[in-house]
Every structure is written in structure tokens, then in C-alpha cells.
């Protein structure tokens, strides 16, 4: 059976939001996800910042730990020096090194979290 009434008016289906784009925070996350050139640049920047921080901490630890034997050998007096009745190397290796490591670790975590929150801000606000 065919309808005989007036032909229905044609309706155009279009997007009123064409060109508006998706929310940007998702689109940079997508850039990261889909390895576009832009996402690559963001990743490289984040990794470089984090790696510099890590290398700095490892370098500090290496200087402290690697330098201590050098100090002991270069200045023999430090090997027999006493602090509060305890020999200097025993004080450094037995006691002081532990709070030092803890303080460095705390500082590192704060810096690393700062890098990440800066990164999140950039990605979110772009």
C-alpha cells in the first residue's frame, strides 16, 4: 500500500558542533595514546624531566658513597678520627647514611610528583 499524502519534508542530518572538537584534555591523552607526533613530544619531555631528576639523585648517592672511600684513602687521618668517642667511618656508615638516604628519597618523591602534576596541568589546559 502506498501513501498518497504530501511527501514529507526532507530533514538534513548535520552536526551543529562541527569544528568544536572534543575536550582537549582527552585529545592530548589521545595523542599520547595513539603516538602522534605531538604525543611523542610530550612523552619525550616528561621522560627527559623524570630521568634528569633520577640521574641527579643517583649521581648524588654515587658522589657520597663513591666519594667516601676516596676521602678515607686521601686523608688517612679521617680513618682514625673519633666523634663522641666513636670512630668517624663507623659513625658515617653505621648511622648517618640512613637518615641521609631517607631525606634524599623524600625530596625525590616530592620533585617527581611535581613534574607529574605540571605535566597533567599542561595536558589538561592545552
Amino acid at each position, binding site marked *: 500500500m502506498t501513501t498518497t499524502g504530501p511527501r514529507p519534508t526532507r530533514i538534513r542530518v548535520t552536526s551543529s558542533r562541527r569544528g568544536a572538537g572534543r575536550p582537549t584534555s582527552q585529545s592530548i591523552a589521545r595523542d599520547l595514546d595513539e603516538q602522534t607526533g605531538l604525543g611523542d613530544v610530550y612523552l619525550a619531555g616528561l621522560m627527559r624531566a623524570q630521568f634528569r631528576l633520577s640521574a641527579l639523585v643517583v649521581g648524588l648517592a654515587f658522589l657520597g658513597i663513591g666519594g667516601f672511600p676516596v676521602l678515607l684513602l686521601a686523608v688517612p687521618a679521617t680513618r682514625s678520627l673519633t666523634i663522641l668517642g666513636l*670512630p668517624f667511618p663507623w659513625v658515617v656508615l653505621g648511622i648517618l647514611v640512613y637518615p641521609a638516604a631517607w631525606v634524599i628519597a623524600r625530596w625525590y618523591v616530592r620533585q617527581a610528583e611535581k613534574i607529574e602534576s605540571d605535566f597533567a596541568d599542561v*595536558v589538561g589546559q592545552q
Partner: protein
Amino acid sequence: MAESSTLSLFAVTLVCLLTLVVGGLGLRLSRATSDFYVAGRTVSPRLNASAIGGEYLSAASFLGVAGLIYDIGVDQLWLPVGYTLGYLVLLVMVAAPMRRSGAYTLPDFAEMRLQSRRVRLIASILVVGIGWLYLVPQFQGASLVLTIVAGVPGWVGGTVVAVVVALAVGAGGMRSITFVQALQYWIKLTAIAVPACILLVLWLRSGAPHPNVADPSWHLALTPRGPDDHPTYRVYSMMIALCLGTMGLPHVLVRYYTNPDGLGARRTTVTVLLLLGIFYLIPPIYGVLGRVHLPELPLDVRPDSIVLRLPNAVIGGLTGELLTAVLAGGAFAALLSTASGVAMSVTGVIDQSLVRPYLARVTGGDATGPLGFRIAAAASVIVPYAVTRVIEPIGLATMVLLAFTVAAATFAPLLILGVWWRDLTRAGAIAGLVVGAFTALVSIGVSITAGPFEGWLGALLATPAAWCVPLAAVVAIVVSLATPKSTPPGTIRLLVRLHTPERIDLRSRSLD
């Protein structure tokens, strides 16, 4: 000695029962296979840090460090420093990315990063090997403790620990172990600190006499003990092994998957450094006071026993026996927690790589996770137990250093390059793992079976980390650069996931 053995046996039995009971309670909570592996990822950073501390402080820390300081002196203070700084290196190099990778075990990470079954297989073999190397001294330590406090034959202690560990791991999986381990840190700390404080007070009251050692190298740092000894090289090499080896120990990174996210993994590690630092203040006290009160041990007595011998030598009577019992219980807590942690990881790898694929083939895919897991738990304990029955014990801390060296020469380059370098290829990773494992194992093996050698040869073979680790890393880098075609697909996508903070919503993250 009779009361001493009764009290000490009571303490040891109590610790074993506690481990089993808490493990049994965990059984009711764990249902799915993922619960068995990573505690459902619901463990808070503080609990997790205590658990890491509890798992990490082994017989080598509780007995071995004091034994070596007693025996060799100031240069062995580097040992606990290295055990601790390993976590600092782990923190800054791999903690957060490893957690974000979402992998369960080291082989999981290796396969995920390099998209290669072959790399996974090599990593699995290494995990099992390193784990077994680490379990051997725990079983030997158990034998030592029970022989000293109860006079039973050597095989008893090792057997007890092997059975308890197999039961605890097989019954509850990791969720139970997390609670057990966290509790064990505090048991260990109390058990080693309380007797140490009492002994220190008594020492101060008696006028703080100096330790009685004729050998100048005991007092003076970096003094050669022989004509061609190279103590400075040995210290550096040991520090490289310990600082880099920690991240490659099978039971360490598994703990990181129980953190809720990358931030949690970092914060956990900071607390771990604090907990380890507090603990390691104590063992040198036993080493030094040992030389005050027991200047020489008979030739057939191992220095590892100094912690357990000191209370009776200083105080005697019921108090001395009580303190010995506390220390024996603490030492057993140390052994059990480390051994269960290591056995847990080895079990996970054996289960995933061998048992589960086999059961799936036999039963047509109907195999239940827990069954395969329990079979693997038994396998993980039997081999190192058999080894302890065959080989002569060397020092507890020396044996543990071997496991660290192999881990540092294999997994440290793989993890660090894998996390930070996008050009790592399959061929490069395999070459690095093989070269690192081969050089470390051969030089240590030669040193133990044919040595000890004199001079530089002896130093380079006995503590090879200083040359094995850089060699393995250079080989991995050079081979990677020469084989750009074997760069795994999806490297960048994975690196994005490893380094991007969780609050940024990545679709690739929902895949794990």
C-alpha cells in the same frame, strides 16, 4: 642449656605457628587467581612498606651482617648500607613505572616490554635461579639457629622452614603473606632491638670497654687484610651489586604491584628506606659487642652465630636464656618471611610459565588456578632444600651477595634500559641477559669451587659486579643499536603508559 633450648624452641615454634595461622586466615579471603598473586592490589602504602621490610630483612640481615662485622670489621658496614641504598636506586629508576606497567612478575614485564616469548623464558629461568640462590642461605640459617639453640642436627632447621614456607605460600598466596610480612617486620625489629639495648646498657655500665681485636684492618677502614687484597675494589664492587641487585630480586618488584598506583609505589619506597635504616642501626652493635665479650670464636664455630651467642656470654642465667629465645624467634621470623616472599615469587613464575600451561593442556582448560599454584609452591621449595643438603655452607651474607650479583648483572640493565630507553631491542635485551648471567655465574662459580685466588684475579672473580654489570649493559646497548629491526612494536605506547601519571586518562591503561 636445657632451659635455653626450651625457651628458644618455644619462640621458634610460636613464630612458625603464627606464620601458618595467619596464612590460613588469608586463605578464606583469597578467591580469584589475581588475589593469589597481588593481593587484589588493595594494600595501602604503609602496610606495604612494612611488608617489604619484613620480607627483605632476611637471615643475612638478622644474623649475617653482625657475623661479618664481627669477623671482618668496619669494611662490612657497607653491606647493610648497600642493602638499604638498593631501594633508593630502585625508587628513582623503576618504582613508579614498574607499578604502572601492570605486570605481575619480572618475566611479565620482560615479555610486555619486548613482545617476545623468548625474552620471557630467559627472564623466567633467571627469576627461578636467583630465587633458589636466595632460598639456600635462608634454609642454612634455619639449620644454624636450631643447632645452636636446641642442639638438633643441621637438617632439622632447614626441613622445618621448607615445610612451613611451602604450606604458607601454597595455602594463602600473597594476600596472606602481605599481612604476615608486615607483622614480621615489627617482630624482627623488636626481637633484635630489645636485647641490643639491654646489652648496650650493660656495656656502658661496665665502663664501655673497647673491642679486643689485634688485626688493624678490623678497626681501620679499607686496610688490606693481606699483601694483595684490594679492599677498595671489593667495597665498590659489592656496592654496585647491592645497589643495582635489589631491583632484580624476584621477591622485591612483585611487592610493587600491590601498590594502588605509581605514586603509592614511590611513597611506599620512602617508608621502606626509613624502616630499613632503623633496623640496620642494630646489627653492628652485636658485631662490636661480640668482640668485646667473645674476642675469639673456636675455629669450628661460624661467626654468623655471634648474635645468638652474645646474650648467654654477657648475662647468662634466665635473662640470658630469655634474650637468646627472643633472638632465635626473631631470626626465624626473618628466615620465614624472606623465604616465603622469595618462594612466592618463584612459585608465581613456575606456575605461570610451566604448571598452568601444562595443566591447561591436560585438562582441556578446566584447571583451577589454586591447584597449579600449590604444585608450583612445592616445586619452588624442594630444589633449594635439596641443594642445602648437598653443599657446605658458606657465610649467610656472602651467599646472599651472590644472588644480588646475578640480579644486578641481568635484571638491572634490562629494567633500567627497558623503562628509560626506547631503542632497546629484543636481540639487545637477550644478549645483555645472557652475557650478564653467564659472566656473573661463571666467575662466582670458579671462585667458590677452585678459589679463593690471590690478588686481582681473586678480587675480580669473587666480587665480579663491578665489571659484569657494565659489561652486560654495554652489550645490551651495542647489540640494540646494531639490530634496530628487532625493536618491539608498541614500544612507545608502553612507555607512555609507564611514565604518564594515573590521573591522565589513557585508553591503553584500561587494557591491563
